[in-house]
């Protein structure tokens, strides 16, 4: 597991926030997932050692929160809202479009490694449904056409990088 020096510095700093080391479990998991994209077994054992815990204590926390990923995902995480308002105005179609564009399935890494498409619950922007959150960026009124537009943009970026 290769953590960035900045992540290590933030980890050492965040541990000092708590009267007990074990309270640092959750922030450390977040920091590591931000850095390497998911929580491998190695990370669980690393955190346990860092916080003077047993690996099972960290493992319990990781399995409780669905937001912690045990497997790597694509370069971008496309989160399509499927709660009522979005579902009513075509979130499922939007989601299918993304999957079709990147030739992938729900929750899987696309073959080009660019994206992982997933459904999520309400993103609290029902007025502009359907909404899609790509990493930290919110996209509103994403119908199939706009989904295509966004997909093309992502592919263009990838080509540029490539």
């Amino acid at each position: 597991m290769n953590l960035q020096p900045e992540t290590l510095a933030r980890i050492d700093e965040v541990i000092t926030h708590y009267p007990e080391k074990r309270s640092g479990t959750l922030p450390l998991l977040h920091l590591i997932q931000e850095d390497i994209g998911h929580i491998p077994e190695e990370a669980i054992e690393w955190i346990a050692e860092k916080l003077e815990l047993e690996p099972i204590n960290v493992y319990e926390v990781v399995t409780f929160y669905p937001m912690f990923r045990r497997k790597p995902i694509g370069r971008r995480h496309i989160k399509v809202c499927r709660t009522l308002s979005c579902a009513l105005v075509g979130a499922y179609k939007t989601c299918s479009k993304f999957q079709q564009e990147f030739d992938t399935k729900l929750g899987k890494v696309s073959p080009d490694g660019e994206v992982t498409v997933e459904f999520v619950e309400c993103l609290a922007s029902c007025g502009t449904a359907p909404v899609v959150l790509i990493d930290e960026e919110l996209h509103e009124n994403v119908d199939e056409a706009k989904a295509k537009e966004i997909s093309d943009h992502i592919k263009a970026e990838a080509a540029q990088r490539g």
Partner: protein
Amino acid sequence: MIQPAKPELVTVNIDGQEVEVPKGINVIEAARMVGVDVPHYCYHPKLTIAGNCRMCLIELGMPAVDRATREPIMDEATGKQKINWIPRPQIGCGTNVSPGMHIKTQSDMVKECREGVMEFLLINHPLDCPICDQAGECKLQEQATGYGRGYSRFIEQKNVKPKRTQLGPRVVLDDERCVLCSRCIRFSQEVAKDDVLGFVDRGSYSTLTCYPGKELANNYSLNTVDICPVGALTSTDFRFKMRVWFLKQTNSIDTESSVGANTVVWSREGVIYRITPRQNDEVNDTWMADSGRILYKQVQSDDRLLPAGSLADNLAAASALLKDGGVAVVGSGRSSVEEQFFTARIAKQLEAKSCIVARHGEGDGILVSADRNPNTRGALVTGLITGLPATELTELAADIDAGAVKTVLVVGEDLTAAGLSADQLAKVNIVYLGFHANATSAAAKVSIAGLTVFEKSGTYINQQFRLQKFASAVPGLAGATDDRVVLAQLLAAVGGETTGSDLASVWSALSREISVLDGLAYAQLPDTGLLLDSTAWSGLAFPEGETLHYQPATAEATA
């Protein structure tokens, strides 16, 4: 004997009955003291409180006091102080008694709470009692009968979870049966100090598991099976072997070390099926080591010494050798106090040197001590030895080489394991008494088959100088004789003072002749043992380190 300090008492009212209970105990324990059962799963008296099963819900009230004046508010109808009942039920395990506390354990609300909790617990329980090993000693079964509504309203699908997870070499887990009480997790953390168990995927599919790649392999893992209130954790050794209601329970003592953990031996028709710990708050709480639970296998082990010849012939041959002079006696720290008493008397009668073989291992700081003989203290008390024993019998070896010893009486020990060579064994006549065959019994002129601890009764003195008794659980091997009887008859045969070999007669002699046992009798010994006055041996540097409920005296002296 040291009397425990009198606890401070508080008066509480349980179901309308005023009772005095020790301050600071919880409602479950207080109710237990007056014979009221408060059902529970997650609460265990020797573990921390988790409060997660909610089965022990009770109604709680405190006497009403005027906030401004601190004056008690009286109820005019009854003339007594008014009770402010908390409108919601409270958990009994997490509520400590305080003066004047009122508790209802039988009200309609409590009854409904219990029915509700039982219904939720049974929703995802597989109800496979007919094939479950826990049946007959299952809290879920008992409390479903005692406190459940008696019928199911559940028409949905039950959860599917892992069955038959091998948590460790001795423990199997059925997650569907688990009621998520977390007793096993707390035991692993707090007592065994091996934190490997935990709940993962918390939610509808909460699953008990070990961390991937680790296992529940510590020497205390089977205690999790004992404290599991349901059939989730089962022992690989006992699984599917026998229904518990067929088994006879006999109190015994763990012989693997000088801790002397109290045990129950479970047997049926002369066959032992398992050993579990018996509660003794001064010795082992409610725990015992896994290594002590498999000792029953020695009863049917392949290396048992099989009886040969009649006892009378063997005794005659043995006494002829012994009366010829030049005798050394090798007793055993595994013999009971009674047997050691006779061994010491034989040595005295023959003016022979006596010793026992020490057996040392590493203490684990919990319930296995460094002295692996269960009864070294007994040998000191009975005068079989006067100082601490050695692991090697160098003095005996030297005496044999010098030709000073012609005959050795050996009780249960293997002299080759205690540093004697086969040549040295060949130089002497050996009279062997024991239950297992070894190099010494093979070299013996006379060997008499004895019994294992599970087939005879007697007492041991543990590292605290606590005299503890064990009883025979199963009949002895056909043709083998109780070691105590053999030794008593041998004593008589070599011309010693004859004492009856039954426990009552032996104990009248013991209490007459040994000052620290003065006034004691086997039949009167309490199940949890009796602490003896050990001041006569306080100068000895015993090998034991700290274990549960035991501080080595030498550490105190140097501190």
